[in-house]
């Protein structure tokens, strides 16, 4: 066996004055490392950072996919702020969706996690099964299925009629209900927060509950005084992640309203509006401006969450 110590020779030499070609040599030496990093580097610069910067540029232009973009300054942003009723409608729909769906989903996820935490036989199997909706939930196929189920002559109304004699409306095409139907459907994707809650619940030592039991605290008081406070870091994490997800929700609204955001803009999610502007009307510059506004809104929300955290999140270290 022969040993090639060449790679190390440079490093043992005492640091001399910078030599010509040092950079090249360093690159050559680390080439395998960069090679392994390449997929991520290409992904990050080519698919994330690059397009993001381009979109920032485009948001100051009137790009329409066909002609070269012309610089229009802040015109897009000004119009969004002052003269775009659809923007206001989309904001309203999205905010209602976020404010309702995130807490509901978290409460549901926590409830399921608490049930699981009681030590059910075959827990891993159940966990996998309950996680499944989260994998499928955002998919087109499931959204199509929802549309069928919740249509005026769908399965849901049929059951309502058979069971209670109630003639249900069309849950998806009645503007009074459509958004709330989507909120309810979002709960269906409770899997990932549930798994995280479950992990958090497992972290709480059982003797904490035993001490509370001796202190006379019943199950309810134990939940509010022990479980919930000790779980706040996990609640916080889930809330931030789910809020971001909710702001970005797209597929269900797109499929259920067939891309229109109807009826009467009642399901015009922000991302859906953005999509319409970009690919319906080819107002790419305008859509880019909308995207950056969404980014800022999400960033503000997240920043606010982190600021508020010190008042209600209990960290043990």
């Amino acid at each position: 066996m022969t040993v090639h110590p060449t790679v190390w020779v440079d490093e043992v030499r005492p640091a001399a004055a910078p030599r010509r070609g040092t950079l090249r040599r360093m690159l050559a030496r680390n080439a395998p490392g960069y090679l392994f990093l390449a997929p991520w580097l290409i992904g990050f610069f080519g698919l994330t950072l690059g397009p993001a910067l381009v979109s920032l540029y485009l948001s100051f232009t009137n790009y329409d996919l066909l002609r070269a973009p012309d610089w229009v300054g802040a015109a897009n942003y000004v119009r969004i702020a002052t003269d775009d009723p659809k923007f206001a409608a989309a904001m309203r729909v999205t905010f209602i969706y976020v404010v309702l769906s995130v807490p509901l989903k978290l409460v549901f996820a926590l409830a399921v996690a608490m049930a699981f935490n009681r030590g059910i036989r075959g827990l891993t199997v159940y966990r996998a099964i309950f996680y499944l909706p989260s994998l499928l939930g955002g998919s087109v196929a499931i959204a199509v299925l929802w549309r069928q189920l919740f249509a005026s002559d769908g399965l849901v109304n049929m059951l309502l009629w058979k069971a209670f004699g109630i003639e249900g409306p069309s849950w998806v095409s009645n503007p009074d209900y459509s958004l709330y139907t989507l909120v309810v459907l979002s709960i269906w994707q409770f899997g990932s927060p549930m798994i995280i809650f479950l992990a958090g619940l497992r972290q709480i030592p059982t003797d904490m509950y035993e001490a509370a039991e001796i202190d006379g605290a019943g199950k309810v008081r134990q939940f509010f005084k022990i479980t919930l406070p000790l779980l706040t870091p996990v609640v916080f994490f889930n809330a931030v992640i789910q809020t971001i997800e909710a702001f970005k929700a797209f597929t269900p609204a797109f499929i259920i309203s067939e891309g229109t955001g109807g009826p009467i803009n009642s399901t015009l999610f922000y991302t859906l509006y953005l999509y319409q502007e970009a690919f319906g009307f080819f107002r790419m510059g305008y859509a880019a401006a909308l995207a950056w506004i969404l980014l800022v809104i999400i960033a503000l929300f997240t920043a606010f969450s982190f600021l508020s955290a010190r008042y209600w999140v209990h960290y043990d270290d």
Partner: protein
Amino acid sequence: MASSINLAKIEKRFGSVEVIHGIDLAIEPGEFTVFVGPSGCGKSTLLRMIAGLEDISAGELSIDGERVNEVPASKRGIAMVFQSYALYPHMNVYKNLAFGLQTAGYPKAEIEARVKKAADILQIGHLLQRRPKALSGGQRQRVAIGRAIVREPKIFLFDEPLSNLDAELRVQMRVEIAKLHQTLGSTMIYVTHDQVEAMTMADKIVVLRDGRIMQVGRPLDLYNNPANQFVAGFIGSPKMNFLKARLADSDPSRRTIEVAGRALTLERPLAARTGEPLVFGLRPEHVEARDNGASLGEASVQLVEHLGGSTVVYTSTADGQSATLLLDGQRHIRAGERLPLGFDVERAHVFGEDGRRV
């Protein structure tokens, strides 16, 4: 202020595994009882059954003469100090102490008074606003005890409360708990696997092994009259020497027992037959390095530990059995030397092959 506790044929099964096999025990009001035994013998399980944290599979547990098997933990008049302290990490010390009282709906003034009193007893008044994570191990221990005190329980239960503390602090807290017992006069049950803690603190020691009681008694009773080889070996440090022996002659006039190749004459009767193999027990502190009275013959010194106030000598007898001596003061003994092993035959313990005292 103090309660009696009675255990009658108490059993515990986890699924099909029985870990406590019919325990009978009476604890008097105000008594300091220590459960001691090796790891896994069921000390914690027994304590947790008394606390109400573990169901009782069979038998009857009564407090002050009343059956409490079905009474929830919070209604048994007990307080418990956990090995892990189990302090609520998100509450400061004050809230930790007050939690149980708040749950029970005491008025604010009363809660404050009780917390203050407990804090005074334990000298933790200056820590009330701190979170548990900002406390040292010893301080946490005090808070855990404080949480028990404020409830003014009739019975205190401790599950190895000192095992997370360093040696010095353990001794200090041991004294404090003993003092607390004197001050409050409550019934206390204390679990430990440390026989020194058991000997120093207990009014009554309960030695457990594999879910059964081996012996119950006052510390010195257990030391002087161990009922079996297990208790004899468990109580006392260094451990009692056990040497293989044989009853050479059971005739009352020349009751002789063969040990380490020598014949010893015992004054007291032995419940054993001639020729029966026996275990001869002798505490290290009862062996002397000179010939007086009975002797195990000459032994060769293997190892010497100089502790300053005393010297521990590990030897091997003529027939190759090991024997330890605990000698007073500082001795000039070296490994390889030969020593005579003398003792007072009245201090010897004799056990049958099954471990029972004979």
